[in-house]
């Protein structure tokens, strides 16, 4: 049995029971009651969406891989809640939470999972490949680490166009060992790009605990020093802390056009994907410990209850509404049509989809 992941998280980052010390941080203190309720609602929606997905998967309606975000909600919620018009995001395959946070609808997200033409990617991408460029969400990428250079490029484009913006590039603790990530780190720092690399450290890459996969100087974020980049570590069970520390990195991106590596300690409650029986590499006790003592959604609920922003009745209403929304999305996904065989060869080339005087090449581009 591998050592429990909790040991790899610096002691100081264990969230003590009780209110967040970041509640008074200006980015949090300045939130209105409605803002706070909205943020909580979004976290609850992610939780219920994902839990609904489990049932649909078990009914055999979702095939392939399904990587759940349950337990990690505060990471996407905290970081994305700070973003403005010219801030972009890109992530790996554990991408549903980010999608819901940027404002994608549960219907289109659910329908994508069941491969329907009403899905966000018209049934072409699946669970690992959500996209919503109209909401500055550039995916949803299946190849570990592949998104890091892309996100760096998005930040480059933002800077090139003279916009005050950034790109948040999410990846896992296992992804930091891909060459592409290191090349992206170097480029981001060398060219002063407004990018924030968010390492969602949930302790494991599939069945490999973080200490078995990575040589690092105390924490993964500290690798940034080798590239002359700023870095910070964050308790990802406390959405206020996520917001407070991400805000600093965002300011660095916006005002100095400089990159940051943020390592956010978090935890996934379910197996790597639904295909992972999750029996060999961590004990049930460890999962229980996180669920019961550090759950980010419950912690924020507690926080807001004690702030008297939330009442138990309102919380119940929010959660029931989220569940009902997920149920409706499941129905929508069930009843939506599939793409057609003709759809298979659409969206391969711009010019095939837009035949006309503007197409610039000749010859066959799609073959029989």
């Amino acid at each position, binding site marked *: 049995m591998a050592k429990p992941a909790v040991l790899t998280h610096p002691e100081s980052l264990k969230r003590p029971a009780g209110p967040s010390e970041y509640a008074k941080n200006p980015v949090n203190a300045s939130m209105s009651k409605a803002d706070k309720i909205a943020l909580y609602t979004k976290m609850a929606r992610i939780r219920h969406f994902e839990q609904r997905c489990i049932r649909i998967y078990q009914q055999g309606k979702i095939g392939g891989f399904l990587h759940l975000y349950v337990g990690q909600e505060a990471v996407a919620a905290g970081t994305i809640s700070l973003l403005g018009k010219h801030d972009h995001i890109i992530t790996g395959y554990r991408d549903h939470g980010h999608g819901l946070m940027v404002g994608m609808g549960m219907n289109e997200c659910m329908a994508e999972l069941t491969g329907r033409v009403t899905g966000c990617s018209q049934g072409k991408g699946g669970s690992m490949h959500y996209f919503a460029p109209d909401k500055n969400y550039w995916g949803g990428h299946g190849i570990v680490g592949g998104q890091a250079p892309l996100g760096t490029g998005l930040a480059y484009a933002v800077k090139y166009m003279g916009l005050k913006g950034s790109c948040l590039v999410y990846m896992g603790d296992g992804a930091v060992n891909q060459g592409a990530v290191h090349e992206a780190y170097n480029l981001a720092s060398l060219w002063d790009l407004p990018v924030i690399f968010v390492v969602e450290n949930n302790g494991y890459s*599939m069945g490999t605990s973080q200490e078995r996969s990575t040589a690092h100087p105390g924490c993964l974020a500290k690798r940034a020093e080798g590239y002359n980049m700023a870095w910070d570590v964050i308790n990802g069970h406390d959405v206020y802390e996520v917001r407070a520390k991400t805000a600093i990195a965002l300011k660095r991106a916006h005002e100095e056009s400089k990159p940051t590596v943020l390592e956010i300690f978090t935890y996934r409650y379910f197996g790597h994907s639904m295909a992972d029986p999750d029996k*060999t590499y961590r004990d049930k006790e460890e999962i229980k410990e996180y669920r019961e003592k550090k759950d980010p959604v419950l912690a924020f609920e507690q926080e807001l209850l004690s702030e008297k922003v939330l009442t138990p009745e309102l919380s119940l209403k929010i959660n029931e509404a989220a569940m009902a929304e997920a149920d409706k999305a499941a129905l929508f996904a069930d009843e939506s049509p599939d793409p057609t065989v003709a759809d298979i060869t659409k969206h391969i080339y711009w010019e095939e989809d837009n035949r006309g005087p503007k197409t610039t090449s000749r010859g066959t581009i799609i073959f029989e």
Partner: protein
Amino acid sequence: MAVISYREALRAAMREELKRDDKVVIMGEEVAQFNGAYKVTEGLLKEFGPKRIVDTPISEAGFIGLGIGASMLGIRPVMELMFWSFSYVAFDQIVNNAGNIRYMSGGLINCPIVIRGPANGGTNVGATHSHTPEAILASHPGIKVVCPATPYDAKGLMKAAIRDNDPVYVMENTILYNDKGEVPDEDYIVPLGVADVKRVGTDLTIVAHGRAVITSLKAAEILEKEHGVSVEVVDLRSIRPLDEETILASVRKTHRALLVEENKPFCGVDAQVAYLIQSKAFDELDAPIHRVSSIDAPQIYCKRMEDLQMPNVERVVAEALKVLA
């Protein structure tokens, strides 16, 4: 003879080679403690220990490059890619380094590495995870590529690959892992570059590799029963080296050829096979060569459409009837 699964056959090949040669090392993501993402290496860590069975970080360029380097000094690494789709982040190592080192050193350096893992569509995982790079890789001289379709071939080809002194890339198929078949108890290899006639027939030759062989065999069954046609199915097994003689001999017998593969059509393996037949057996043909491959698009996620995108029994039967018309 024991009846074992394709997965067990691969594992048996590795186990026997690990026992036979202490230079054999297994490496890859989740191969040891987790027993393999697809359980192909299950139990090997327990039997051979952590020096021989090694878990790697998610660093394909790094660990595959390392394996190539180690092979230059005589280690025989068998590297698992969780999916061949992930080989693309290690393409430079796989093609430029492994494929060229012997040539560029004027034959001074051997590179006896095996890279193995599943390369298939049909599992509803979307475009990034459904690549079948056998044609791309086989187009590089210096590299060998095999695609077993049955447990017998999986074991025999894997053993041959491990004993070979050149880079051999073994493309497996997750959909075949549970398929069962007879496998001899005694030591054997399936030599690289030897095709296998999986079904004897007289009216039409189907050339296929990988799971397309299984699809073609089912189609042949239907063609026989429902259309009274006798179909011969040639399983390439190796893409490079390619057994030209077996293909040509079959075509000379049946005078008609249908080529089936799960690749996309452009520059697919069958483009090469079609050229081979027309250049060396043109006069033998009674009809144009036809192909069935995947519909030319990135792999669609939607399972129902993916099943139609790929060669399936219905498509093979329909196309066969066209060749026979």
